[in-house]
């Protein structure tokens, strides 16, 4: 049984110009212990998906339809008090900016202990002990002393470690990590990703890793979902999505990335930009930019359907059932 199951999730923003549909019929699953990568252009709806799962959509955003199941229990319609017990306890979260994620007025010890005692039946002393262990585990030297320090006394990388410790404090089964390394230095990124991977493996937690960075996805994830304009364009094992994508968007995206090992005179580029939420074209949302657009792409919307090794929402896969040839990969 999968740990997390998202079914036909629709997230909407009512506004005076009509209701904006930011997530449209989104479905995917995460197995226990699995790392699912979520990639896509800015504004594709990655963060919203994460927020919807942890139940922290900012009003006026709301789940309009669809279901979210955690360990067989439906959580999208839980009352706030119960949802709070799910958050932190069963789903942990990590946000992009470690500096702003921590309350500057409280020591990290206090923030850790507060989180632990909220969820676990521990005394203050026990909670403190556990907090120190967590810090040690996330690689903070001299955790005994540092626990009483304040966030501003830590460097960016250390802070993100603290944030990871906080997310892991109550041993959640799932961690939603929304761009955990984007704000960090290139040289620290790898440290944090490695850490995240190892501690989650140790605690048996599954991770939903949201990022722009295909490189990070490539080396970290088991499976990857590519989002475009509020929908999943393609989802499948990481190797297959990178090397044998079925969806033209995925293919385009992969070839945009300058490769350190291969030198090219000209990068491939996908012309145009992702449509705004209020101007999503009918049919396949990618059709105005798609080099292989078919007639039906303009008015029929493709659902996710099995491609060769992945699932893709593209009529090409339905037609050919095979990877269209589109700028051969070297």
């Amino acid at each position, binding site marked *: 049984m999968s740990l997390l199951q998202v079914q036909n999730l629709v997230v909407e923003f009512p506004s005076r110009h009509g209701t904006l549909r930011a997530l449209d019929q989104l479905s995917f699953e995460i197995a226990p212990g699995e790392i699912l990568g979520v990639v896509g252009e800015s504004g594709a709806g990655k963060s919203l998906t994460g927020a919807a799962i942890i139940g922290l959509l900012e009003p006026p955003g709301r789940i309009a339809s669809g279901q979210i199941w955690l360990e067989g229990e439906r959580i999208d319609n839980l009352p706030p008090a119960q949802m*709070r017990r799910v958050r932190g306890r069963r789903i942990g979260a990590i946000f992009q900016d470690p500096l702003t994620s921590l309350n500057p*007025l409280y020591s990290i010890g206090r923030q850790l202990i507060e989180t632990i005692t909220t969820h676990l039946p521990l005394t203050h002393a026990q909670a403190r002990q556990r907090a120190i262990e967590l810090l040690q585990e996330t690689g903070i030297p001299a955790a005994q002393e540092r626990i009483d320090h*304040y966030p*501003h006394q830590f460097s960016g990388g250390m802070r993100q470690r603290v944030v990871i410790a906080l997310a892991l404090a109550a041993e959640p089964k799932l961690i939603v990590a929304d761009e955990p390394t984007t704000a960090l230095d290139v040289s620290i990124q790898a440290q944090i990703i490695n850490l995240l991977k190892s501690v989650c493996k140790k605690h048996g937690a599954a991770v939903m890793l949201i990022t722009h960075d295909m490189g990070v996805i490539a080396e970290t994830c088991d499976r990857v979902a590519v989002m475009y304009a509020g929908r999943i364009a393609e989802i499948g094992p990481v190797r297959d999505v990178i090397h044998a994508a079925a969806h033209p968007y995925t293919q385009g995206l992969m070839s945009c990335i300058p490769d350190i090992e291969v030198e090219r005179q000209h990068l491939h580029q996908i012309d145009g930009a992702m449509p705004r939420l209020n101007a999503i074209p009918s049919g396949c949302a990618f059709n105005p930019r798609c080099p292989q657009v078919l007639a039906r792409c303009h008015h029929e919307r493709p659902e996710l359907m099995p491609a060769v090794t992945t699932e893709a929402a593209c009529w090409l896969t339905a037609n050919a059932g095979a990877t269209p040839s589109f700028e051969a990969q070297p």
Partner: protein
Amino acid sequence: MLAFILRRLLQAVLVMVTVALIAFMLFQFVGDPVSQILGQDATAEQVAEVRAALGLDRPVWVQFGHFLYNAVQGEFGMSLRQGTPVATLIAERFPATLELALVAAALALLVGIPLGVYTALRRGSALAQVFMTLSLLGVSLPTFLIGIVLILIFSVQLGWFPSFGRGEVVYIGGWSTGLLTLQGWHHLVLPAITLAIFQLTLIMRLVRAEMLEVLRTDYIKFARARGLSDRAVHFGHALKNTLVPVMTITGLQLGGLIAFAIITETVFQWPGMGLLFIQAVTFADIPVMAAYLCLIALIFVVINLIVDLLYFVVDPRLRVDHASGH
């Protein structure tokens, strides 16, 4: 830390000297105390003699230098109206104003902050809307009008509260307090409300705005994501962060309260410094005015200093030695 306080003090001295100087220059124009002292019927010779005696015939800067020299020693001279040393007068009046201002400040804070939190958390609810609208009324009503209307309703029509004065006071050492007698509190109600209303609404609106701002920050979102209870999030995390900027404004407002007390004290015949000042103005009682202005400046400076020190208590980012951080 020490350097900080020192710098503050230097600044304070600068402020106070400037205030004194400005005040002093202004006094040249507020009127002639001599005709007040001598009454209408005095002869020109008498007037000249008293002017000379008071040093009013000397150049302004000489008077100012003299004033500064004495003021540094806490010596502000004699009140021209009352024939009492100004220091004594102020000492007598200060408790009344301070009590009024403190009670009003307490009222403003104790009512204003919860209301601000409420209207921020329940943004959009009917009650919150009502509070917001009422609060606007609070900033739109001139203090003097509030005072007069309160007297009209609660003293004259209903007869619930006295309309003037401080009632019975108890002396503890040289300090007169009305807070130890029932009558004292009875007298305090209307003036305190009058004085508090403006500040109350201001604090409420400020807290609300700050709170809304803080509620949008990442660490609040992250606190929620950690499954903390609403109580812990709103009052443990959000409110404390809200209070940092609120403190500054509130600090300044408290000083403002003491100044605004001029109007309230005039309306309610509250025997405080404001009343003393207004009467000094109508009498051109220069020593009293000068002392009052310097005292107000001092109070502001002290409050500012306290607020700054409070920052150190509340915000760890300021507390830590620069070198040890990263």
